[in-house]
């Protein structure tokens, strides 16, 4: 479903990249007659203070989207702990405990060397 604006303006979704270490992040949208204008308006609307290295303007009608009502698509019925840090961290810490003395001795040896 296309969200409407003024029939003659098009809606552009705006993505800003603040520096080269960061991904482009969606910040909002603007009404514009062309992509070129959209980028200009985006700079005036979203970058009056913050620095940035890049702006993307994407016509809203070009975006394919999931439906918020389709919860099944994002369902997490099964236990996903086996994919996460939290699934291992506590158990590993518990098991490392019995090696603690050895570990300390070894580390001391390395430091001495």
């Amino acid at each position, binding site marked *: 479903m296309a969200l409407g604006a003024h029939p003659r*303006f098009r809606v552009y979704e705006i993505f800003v990249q603040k520096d080269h270490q960061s991904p482009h992040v969606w910040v909002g*949208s603007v009404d514009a007659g062309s992509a070129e204008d959209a980028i200009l308006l985006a700079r005036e609307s979203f970058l009056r203070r913050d620095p940035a290295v890049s702006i993307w303007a994407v016509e809203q009608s070009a975006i394919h989207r999931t439906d918020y009502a389709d919860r099944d698509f994002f369902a997490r019925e099964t236990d996903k702990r086996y994919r996460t840090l939290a699934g291992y961290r506590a158990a590993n810490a518990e098991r490392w405990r019995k090696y603690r003395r050895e570990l300390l001795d070894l580390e001391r040896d390395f430091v001495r060397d």
Partner: protein
Amino acid sequence: MPNHDDRHAAFLDRVQRGEKIEATDWMPDEYRIAMVKFLQMHALSELMGALPEKEWVPRAPTLARKLSLMAKVQDEVGHAQLILRVAEDLAAPLGKGREELVAELFTGEAKFHNVFHMPAPTWADAGIIGWLVDGAAVVSQAALLTSSYAPYARVLQRVCAEEGFHIQHGESICLALAEGTPAQRQMLQDALNRWWEALLLFFGPPESNSPSAAVLFKYRFRTKTNEELRQKFLTKYVPRIWALGLTIPDPQLRFDEEAGRWVYTPPDWSKLKAIARNQGPLSQYRLGLRRLSYEQGRWVREALLAPAAQAV
């Protein structure tokens, strides 16, 4: 396909559980219409709020003050753009576009905030607007950050962050005047006297019985009453005003420890009725300024609409 009543009941249940609504979700017309009306008024108020301060840009006392005031005025217009964008998506299924949302200001169908119908005759008024009017605006807007309508709540995060700058800017002006010459202090005190009633009127009457307010509460668009917001404002700002040695022009004003609330002389609520009919002190003057800039900017909008033709 569930029938309309079932959908409506499910929607109401969702918002009352604290779930957020997105532009593409199904929503009852009652919700959509109330949202459009509120967002339209907020956007137009940002636009109209720029006018009392814009009057002071050419007369700002120093270049630094002129720059910060221009930045603030530009922010307010920017907020109007962001909020209009959200309002447009909601209004589209009602057959209403951006042009109508903006132009309804001139027919009186759309209102702008009561506080922007007031005069700002001195530089101290520009300071009081930045410090206390924007302070009041942040109190009411921060209460909407958890609003049920997610696209608006997202835009408000940016708006509130920038309003934080406006308050600092206003405080800076007021502190300079408070620490200035006796004439400057007096100018600040006079501006406070002029704005005090307007600051109480800002949040609206304690019991708002309007049907449109009831709809906003029902759908968890807002959760705090006018009086709760006003009390919050008083708690934050009265001590600061007193700390500067200024006098608040209300001999009844005091904090009632037992009741845990501020007691104040009620402002003349009937003034809000006149303002709602655009018969406030400067309603017509400011609408005239807005109409002028709308007409003078028409060629810019038309040029933006026809880039393809120009490129040939």
